[in-house]
């Protein structure tokens, strides 16, 4: 049951990405083309997600603990530091260039396309660089 919940969460997340159009890099890039051929769809993806997650999180956090875990595992940092803003900014540049962010990139692995593999391997390498710097 524990494991099924995780697997199911992953499938639902992936299906949500596909249905919403996030696995189409051109659609993502067109959302970022604010002053060109703008496709506002992705604002609706974020809106739909927050519309469910905001009240959902609120309800869940009223519970003492999660169903299969001892406690909630939430970020504690409150700092608005260079690392946060710079990291997010660099991420945005990569997102704009390829039209892919981590969720859609992983979901797209099962399209079995070489371009995606190159993207994902590079992305993992980028994360390992962060691990090297931070630790």
């Amino acid at each position, binding site marked *: 049951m524990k494991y099924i919940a995780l697997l199911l969460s992953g499938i*639902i997340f992936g299906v949500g*990405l596909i249905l919403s159009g996030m696995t189409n890099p051109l659609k993502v890039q067109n959302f970022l083309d604010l002053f060109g051929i703008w496709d506002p769809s992705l604002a609706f993806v974020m809106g739909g997600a927050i519309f469910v997650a905001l009240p959902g999180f609120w309800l869940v956090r009223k519970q003492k603990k999660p169903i299969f875990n001892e406690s909630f595992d939430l970020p504690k940092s409150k700092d608005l530091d260079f690392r946060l803003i710079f990291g*997010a900014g660099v991420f945005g540049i990569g997102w704009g260039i390829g039209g892919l962010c981590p969720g859609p990139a992983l979901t797209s692995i099962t399209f079995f396309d070489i371009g995606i593999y190159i993207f994902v391997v590079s992305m993992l390498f980028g994360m390992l660089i962060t691990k090297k710097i931070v630790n």
Partner: protein
Amino acid sequence: METEFTPITSLLGGALIGLSAVMLMATYGKIAGISGIIYRILPPVLRKESIPVGILFIFGLLLAVPFWNLFFGDIERQAVSDNYFILGVSGLLVGFGSSYGNGCTSGHGVCGLSRGSIRSLIATFSFMFTGFLTVYILRNILGL
């Protein structure tokens, strides 16, 4: 090339993403931030419990496309580049940036904003701004 504006399917897809995030929070108390989930299972792993959670969630993500193909058919997909060098650079920036900034579109943009996190709001502004700027430069200045 233009893409069709799809408010309904995008809204519904977004709602599924939100549902998944609530499920993960309700069952394991974890944030459905994909960059964080991947980052925590890359070596060196700080907490062993991250591994089964991450692997199973990611395995679920990998099943989404076959699941969709089985029940709903083809998925519309248009690559923005078939240049492997560009895709590699883009992946590197996404991987480094999202992990260094502690989150991506899902962790900051969906979960963080839904928790009312100021950090996530700032991060979302930051990646949206550089995303808009990057595409502007690519399409209008470099003419790609």
